[in-house]
C-alpha cells in the first residue's frame, strides 16, 4: 500500500488559516503562561511585593494602623535598643546553635545505627520520625506537662527515690531557652535521620566494597568515605533546620509563652507581639526585615553553591 496517496492533498499552510483559527492558535501559544498567571500574582505581589511593602512599613512610624510618614531607619535603631529584642536575638543564637548541632548529631548517629541491617528497621525508623508529623503546639503542650516543675519529671524522680533531683527550667529565666531546645530536638531529629538514611542508601555500594578490599574497617569507612560523601545532605539539613529555628514561633507560644517575663522570646514571637497585639506595626515590620536578612544570609550562599555545583557537575 502506498502511504503517499493517503496524504496527498492535505494542506498545512499556516498562511491559509482563518482569523478565528489564528486567534485560537495565539491563545494556545499563551496557554502555559495563562495557567501560571495565579502563580505570577503570588510571586510578584504576595511574596516580593509584600516584602517591599513590609520594608516600607518598617521605615514609618506606623503603630496600630499604617501611617505613611517616613522616618528613615528610626525603627531599626529602636529595635536594637529594645531589651526584649536583644534577648530574643540572644535566645535565637543559643537555640539555633544547640538545636541544629544536636539534631545533626543525633540524626546522623541514629542513621548510622539504623544502617546496620537492623531487623524491623522500618518500624524503628517510624518511631523516631513520628514527632515530625505533630504540630509544634502539641509538642509544646506535651513537654510543658513533662517538664512541669512540680508534677512532671521532677516528681517522677522523687517517687522513684531520687529526692534531690530538681528540674525547674521552665520557670528559670536562665534555663528556659534550653527547654525549647529539648522539645524541638525531640521533634526534628528524626527528620535529619530520615534524610541521612536516604543519603546512606544512595552511597555507591561498589565504593564501599572497594574500601573493604583496601582493608578499611567499617568505622573508618563511615568516617572517611561514607559520611564525607553525604556533605550535600548535611548542608540540606543545615539549611532546613536553620529555617525551622528562625521561624520558631509556635513552640515558644505553647511551651513557655515567652516567659518567664520575656526570657524565652524568639524574634518571631517579638514580631507577632509588636505587630499584632501591641500596636507597634513599624517596629514589628523592622524586626521582620531583620529576620529576612538572617535567612538570606544563610540561604543565598547555599543556593549560590547549589546552582554553581549544578553548572559544573
Amino acid at each position, binding site marked *: 500500500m*502506498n*502511504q*503517499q496517496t*493517503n*496524504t496527498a492533498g492535505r494542506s*498545512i499552510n*499556516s498562511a491559509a488559516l482563518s482569523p478565528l483559527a489564528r486567534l485560537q492558535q495565539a491563545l494556545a501559544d499563551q496557554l502555559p503562561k495563562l495557567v501560571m498567571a495565579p502563580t505570577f500574582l503570588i510571586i510578584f505581589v504576595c511574596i516580593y511585593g509584600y516584602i517591599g511593602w513590609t520594608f516600607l512599613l518598617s521605615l514609618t512610624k506606623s503603630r496600630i494602623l499604617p501611617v505613611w510618614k517616613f522616618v528613615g531607619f528610626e525603627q531599626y535603631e529602636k529595635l536594637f535598643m529594645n531589651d526584649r529584642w536583644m534577648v530574643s536575638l540572644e535566645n535565637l543564637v543559643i537555640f539555633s546553635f544547640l538545636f541544629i548541632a544536636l539534631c545533626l548529631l543525633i540524626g546522623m548517629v541514629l542513621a548510622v545505627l539504623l544502617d546496620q541491617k537492623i531487623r524491623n528497621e522500618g518500624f524503628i525508623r517510624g518511631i523516631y520520625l513520628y514527632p515530625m508529623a505533630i504540630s509544634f503546639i502539641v509538642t509544646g503542650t506535651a513537654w510543658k506537662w513533662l517538664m512541669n516543675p512540680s508534677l512532671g519529671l521532677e516528681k517522677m524522680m522523687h517517687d522513684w527515690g531520687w529526692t534531690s533531683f530538681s528540674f525547674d527550667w521552665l520557670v528559670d529565666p536562665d534555663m528556659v531557652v534550653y527547654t525549647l531546645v529539648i522539645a524541638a530536638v525531640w521533634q526534628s531529629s528524626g527528620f535529619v535521620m530520615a534524610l541521612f538514611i536516604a543519603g546512606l542508601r544512595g552511597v555507591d555500594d561498589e565504593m564501599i566494597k572497594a574500601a573493604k578490599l583496601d582493608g578499611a574497617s567499617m568505622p573508618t569507612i563511615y568516617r572517611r568515605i561514607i559520611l564525607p560523601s553525604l556533605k550535600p545532605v548535611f548542608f540540606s539539613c543545615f539549611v532546613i533546620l536553620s529555617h525551622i529555628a528562625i521561624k520558631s514561633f509556635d513552640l515558644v507560644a505553647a511551651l513557655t509563652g515567652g516567659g518567664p517575663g520575656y526570657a524565652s522570646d524568639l524574634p518571631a514571637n517579638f514580631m507577632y507581639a509588636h505587630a499584632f497585639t501591641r500596636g507597634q506595626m513599624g517596629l514589628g515590620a523592622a524586626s521582620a526585615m531583620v529576620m529576612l536578612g538572617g535567612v538570606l544570609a544563610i540561604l543565598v550562599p547555599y543556593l549560590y553553591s547549589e546552582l554553581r555545583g549544578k553548572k559544573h557537575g
Partner: protein
Amino acid sequence: MAALTIENAVKNYGQGDILKGINISIESGEFLILVGPSGCGKSTLMNMIAGLETVTSGRILMGDDDVTNVQPKDRDIAMVFQSYALYPNMSVAENIAFGLEIRKVPKHERAQEVERVAKLLQIEHLLDRKPGQLSGGQRQRVAMGRALARRPRLYLFDEPLSNLDAKLRVEMRTEIKKLHQNLGTTIVYVTHDQIEAMTLADRIAVMKDGIVQQFGTPQEIYNDPNNQFVAGFMGSPAMNFIPAKLAGTAAAVTVEVTDANGAVQQLPVPNSAALASQIGNEVVLGLRPEKITEPLPHKEADPMVTHLPMKVLVTEPTGADTMVVSELNGTQVDCRLGPRFDVTPGAAADLMVDMSLAVFFDKATGERIDR
C-alpha cells in the same frame, strides 16, 4: 516534488549558533540520514523539522507548504525517539492508537489500524501489555508502530536503534530498510553510526559543528568526500591519512612515499590535472584500507596499481580478512588483506597499493584539492 526542504535553517539558543545555515532537500520516498558526532546538532535539526523547536532563521518546507511556524500537531509528522517515549500508563494498543484518538478517528477504524500495524511489525501478541513489560527490542517495535499508525507525510527517527544490543540493532536495521522499501515512505533518520548510515540511506548529510559538511548519496560520501572530516567519519576502519609530497610532471603528477627499505617510491595519482599546480607541496593523501592489499594478479596490469614493500607492525585476523597495521611516511596505516596471505609482524611484506580512488587534502584546511 521535494518532500522536505530545509533552507538556510539557523538555530540559536542564546549563546552562538548551534545550527549555522542548514540546506537540505529530499524527494518524496527518499531515506535521508543525518550523521555526525554527538552534539553536532542532529537532534536539534530533527526537533525543528518536527516543530518541537523554533527556527531562529531560515525556512522549512514540506512539499510546497512553508511549515516553519506551523504547530507540531499540524505538520503531520511522526517521530520515533531514542528512548522510545512510550506512554507508560497505556497498553501497547493504546499507545499505537493514541494519535488516531486525538485526531478523532472512529473507534473501529482505530482498531483496524492497530491490527494492521501490529501485523506489520509482528507485535500482535503484545498489544495488551504495558510498555514496562516489554524488552528493549519490543519497545522499539511499538515505538515504530506508533509512528506507522498515523500514516504521516514524514517519518523522523532519532537514533532509534542506539539503545539496542549489537545483534538486535542489525536485525532492526534490516527491518527498517524493508519497511521503507515496502511502504515507500519519506524518512529522516538520525544516527551517529556510520554503518547504519551507509546501509540505510538514499542520501546522507554528514554534519559537524552545526554545518552540513557534505550532502550526497552514500557512494559520493564514501568515494568522493568533500574534506578530511567526512572522509575520516565514514568507513570502518577509517580512511588512512598519509602526509606526503607531490612530485612528477604536470601531465603525470605523483606522490612520494618511503617504503620499508627506505627507498622513495612514486605513486601515480588519479587526477593529475587538478594537482599540477600543487607539485612540490606537502599534502595529505587519503587512502582507504581496502586499497592496500596483498598482490592481486588480476590487477597487475592496472596503471594505478603499484607494488610496495611495507613493514608489518600488527596483524588482526577477523576471519573474513586480515587487518594489518603497517607504516608509511612515519604514519600508521591500516591495510585489508585476504585471510590466506601470510604476513609476519616485524617483517616487511610485499603489498599492492591501488591509487584509483585515492583522494588528496590540503594539509592546513583539510579540504579536497584534487577536484
